[in-house]
C-alpha cells in the first residue's frame, strides 16, 4: 500500500484518527480499490467506526493489489493491517501544527521492515518520518443495514453540537425520543434509586424543521452513549458536512453517517439499549462467536468467554424505561471484566461483526424476526451486553461458551 495525502486532507485524516482514538484501541487500515478505509471498534463492541477516504482525496493512491512489494513471512501479500491508536495519535497529535505546516503525508506499508511508515513533509523542508509496527489482521466489518432504517434524520452538525452542549459532560447516556412532531433528547439514568434522583436532568426539544430531512417511520425512543456521540460531533466539525442519522428502535444500532459523494464516507455505528417493548433477538449471535479468525489481540478477547477462567458475571437487570411496563426490577452487580462475557447473547445492543466463518448467521438486517418468549433486559451502562435467553429470570446469567479454536482447555 502506498498513498500520498495532500495537505488539505491531512487535517481531516488527523481528525479522523483523533475520533477513532476516542472510541477504540486499534485502527484497521484496509486499502480498498475505492480508497483507504480506517476502521475501529470499541472494546465492548458497542461502537464501530468506518471512515473511507476515497481515491480522489489522494495525490497518489496505490492499494497495492497489482504491484505488491509487501509480503509477510509466508510470502503472501499483506493487504490489511492494524495499528495501535495510541501510537498513531502521536503522529497526528497537534492538529494546529498539522494544519499549519504539513504539505503532504505519505503512507507506506513497508514489508521489508514490517513497518507502516508515515512521512509528513512539512514546510521549510522539514520531513517527519514515523515507523510504526503493525499487526496483520482480517477485515473488520460490522453488519448493519443503514438503508433499511425506517427513521432517517439529516441535519447540520451544528444543531446536534448545540444541543449536546446543554448536557452535563459527565453524562454517559442520552435518550432520543422521536415522533412526527418533535424530537426530544433527554439525559438518561438507568437507575431509579434515590442517589440518581439527586442528579440533574436535562431535556432538549427540537422541531422537525431544524432537520433538512425528517423521516419518521416508527415513533420510538433510542438510548445510546453520549460520549461516543461527542467524539463523532467533534469530527463532524472538521468534516463540515451534514450528518445523517439512521435508526430504528431501541436495541438496533443507530448510525451516524457523513458522506461527500465520491470523496469521503464515514459511518459511525453505535449500539442502543434494548428496552422491554422492543424485544429484539436475532440469531446473529453466531456471527461473531464463531469467528475464530477474528483478531484477538485485545487480551480480553471478544470471542473468549472462557467460563473456566472468568466467573459468570451476572448482568444488571434493570427495570425498563419509565414509559413501559417493567419486568423485574432486580439489580445485579456490574460485571467487572465485561468484555469476556460476550458470547451467546441477544445481540441487540451489540454490533454484529462479519467474520471469517459464519455458521447460521442471520444477517443483522433492519428487521429481525423476534423470537417469542424471550425476556429482554436493559444492559449495563456503556457496556452494552444483552441478557441471555434464560426463561427463568434468576440472578445468574448463562453465558455459553462457543466452540473456538483459541480456547484453552474448553
Amino acid at each position, binding site marked *: 500500500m502506498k498513498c500520498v495525502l495532500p495537505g488539505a486532507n491531512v487535517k481531516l485524516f488527523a481528525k479522523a484518527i483523533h475520533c477513532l482514538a476516542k472510541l477504540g484501541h486499534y485502527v484497521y487500515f484496509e486499502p480498498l480499490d475505492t480508497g483507504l478505509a480506517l476502521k475501529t471498534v470499541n472494546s465492548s463492541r458497542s461502537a464501530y467506526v468506518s471512515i473511507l477516504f476515497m481515491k480522489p482525496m489522494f495525490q497518489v493512491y496505490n492499494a497495492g493489489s497489482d504491484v505488491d512489494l509487501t509480503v509477510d513471512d509466508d510470502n503472501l501479500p499483506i493487504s490489511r493491517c492494524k495499528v495501535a491508536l495510541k501510537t498513531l495519535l502521536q503522529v497526528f497529535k497537534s492538529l494546529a501544527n498539522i494544519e499549519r505546516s504539513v504539505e503532504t503525508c505519505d503512507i507506506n506499508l513497508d514489508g521489508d521492515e514490517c513497518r507502516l511508515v508515515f512521512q509528513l513533509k512539512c514546510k521549510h523542508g522539514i520531513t517527519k518520518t514515523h515507523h510504526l509496527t503493525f499487526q496483520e489482521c482480517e477485515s473488520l466489518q460490522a453488519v448493519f443495514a443503514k438503508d433499511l432504517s425506517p427513521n432517517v434524520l439529516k441535519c447540520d452538525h451544528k444543531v446536534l453540537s448545540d444541543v449536546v452542549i*446543554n448536557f452535563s459532560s459527565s453524562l454517559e447516556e442520552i435518550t432520543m425520543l422521536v415522533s412526527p412532531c418533535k424530537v426530544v433528547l433527554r439525559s438518561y439514568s438507568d437507575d431509579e434509586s434515590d442517589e440518581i434522583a439527586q*442528579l*440533574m436532568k*436535562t431535556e*432538549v426539544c*427540537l*422541531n422537525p*424543521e*431544524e432537520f433538512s430531512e425528517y423521516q419518521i417511520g416508527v415513533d420510538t425512543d433510542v438510548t445510546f452513549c453520549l460520549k461516543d456521540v461527542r467524539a463523532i460531533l467533534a469530527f463532524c466539525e472538521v468534516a463540515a458536512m451534514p450528518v445523517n442519522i439512521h435508526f430504528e428502535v431501541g436495541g438496533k444500532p443507530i448510525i451516524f453517517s457523513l458522506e461527500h459523494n465520491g470523496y469521503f464516507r464515514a459511518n459511525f455505528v453505535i449500539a442502543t439499549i434494548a428496552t422491554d417493548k422492543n424485544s429484539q433477538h436475532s440469531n446473529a449471535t453466531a456471527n461473531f462467536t464463531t469467528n475464530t479468525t477474528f483478531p484477538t489481540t485485545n487480551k480480553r478477547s471478544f470471542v473468549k468467554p472462557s467460563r473456566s477462567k472468568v466467573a459468570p458475571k451476572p448482568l444488571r437487570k434493570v427495570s425498563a424505561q419509565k414509559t413501559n411496563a417493567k419486568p423485574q426490577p432486580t439489580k445485579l452487580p456490574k460485571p467487572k471484566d465485561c468484555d469476556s462475557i460476550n458470547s451467546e447473547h441477544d445481540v441487540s445492543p451489540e454490533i454484529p461483526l462479519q467474520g471469517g466463518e459464519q455458521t447460521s448467521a442471520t444477517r443483522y438486517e433492519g428487521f429481525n424476526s423476534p423470537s417469542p418468549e424471550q425476556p429482554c433486559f436493559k444492559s449495563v451502562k456503556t457496556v452494552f451486553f444483552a441478557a441471555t435467553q434464560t426463561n427463568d429470570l434468576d440472578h445468574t446469567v448463562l453465558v455459553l461458551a462457543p466452540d473456538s479454536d483459541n480456547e484453552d482447555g474448553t
Partner: protein
Amino acid sequence: MRFRAKVVNIDCIHHFTNVVNTISKLLKKCSIRLTKEKMFFILPDQVANGGVSMWCELKQANFFDEYQMDGVNKNELNEIYLEIVAENLCRAIKSANNAKSLKIKLTKKQVPCLTVEIELPSLSSTARIVTHDIPVSVIPSALWGEYQEPEMPDFHVSLCLPPLKTVKHIVERLKNLSSYLTLSGNQEGDFALKVETELVSATTRFSDLEIPPYDPDGDSQAPSKLWPPSEMASARIDVKKLLQFLAGQQINPYKVICNIVDQSAVHFFLVHDDISLQYFIPVVAV
C-alpha cells in the same frame, strides 16, 4: 409554595449568570431564600465549611421581568428556603448564553426540583426549549433562624481593596509559598498581604487606599474608633479560601470593602447596583 420567575432581557440573563457563576465558585451547596422582594444566596457559617460564610442578596425586580412567589403561608412565613447544589444551577444557566428567555420555577417531579426552562433561538419557527430539572431540598421553617443576615462585624479597620484582579494575581503567587496568608491594614489606607515561612517572608503592600465611610451609629466605643489609625490590624487566613473568593469573581463590583477584625476574621463586602455579596473568612489558629 409556588415560585416562578422569568427573565427576557439578555443582559439581565448574563448578569444573573455572572452572579450564579460567582456563587458556585465559592461553595458547593448553597441555600436559596426567596422573598417577595429579594432573592438570597446563603451559606451559613458551619464548621464543615471551615467557618466561612456567605450572604448574597439581589433585588428580584432588577433581574426578573416576571416574579411570583408564594411562600409557606401568607403571613409571617411568606418565604421559601431551598438547598441546592450550586454547580447544577450554574450548569443549567450556562445553556442560557444566548437565550431568548429564561424561566425558573419550583416544581415537583420525583423530588422537589427547580426547573430552569430556557428558550433558545433556532433555525425553525418554534424555539428550541432546554429544560433542566435541578433537585432541591426544601428547608423547613423551623430552621430558618440559621439563615439570618450576618451582622456587620465589629471590625477594627475597614478599607476598599485595590482592583481584585491585581490582588488575585498576587495571592496566586503567594499561595505557592505557604497555605496561610496574613491580611493586614490600617485606617490610613495601607494594606498588606504577607506570607511567612521558615525560609522566606514575602509581603506586598498597597497604600493610599480609600477608606469607606462608616459610622457605627455614633458609638464611640466601637472597636474601629478605639483602634489607633496607624496600627495594622491583621488576620491570618487560609489562602485557598481567599483565592476561591477572588478567582470566582464575575460580578465587577464598584468597590470591594475589606473589614478586618484583628486576629479574628476578614469580611469582604462587594458593592454593586443590584447585588450585594458578603463573604466571611475566619482566622486560622496559629
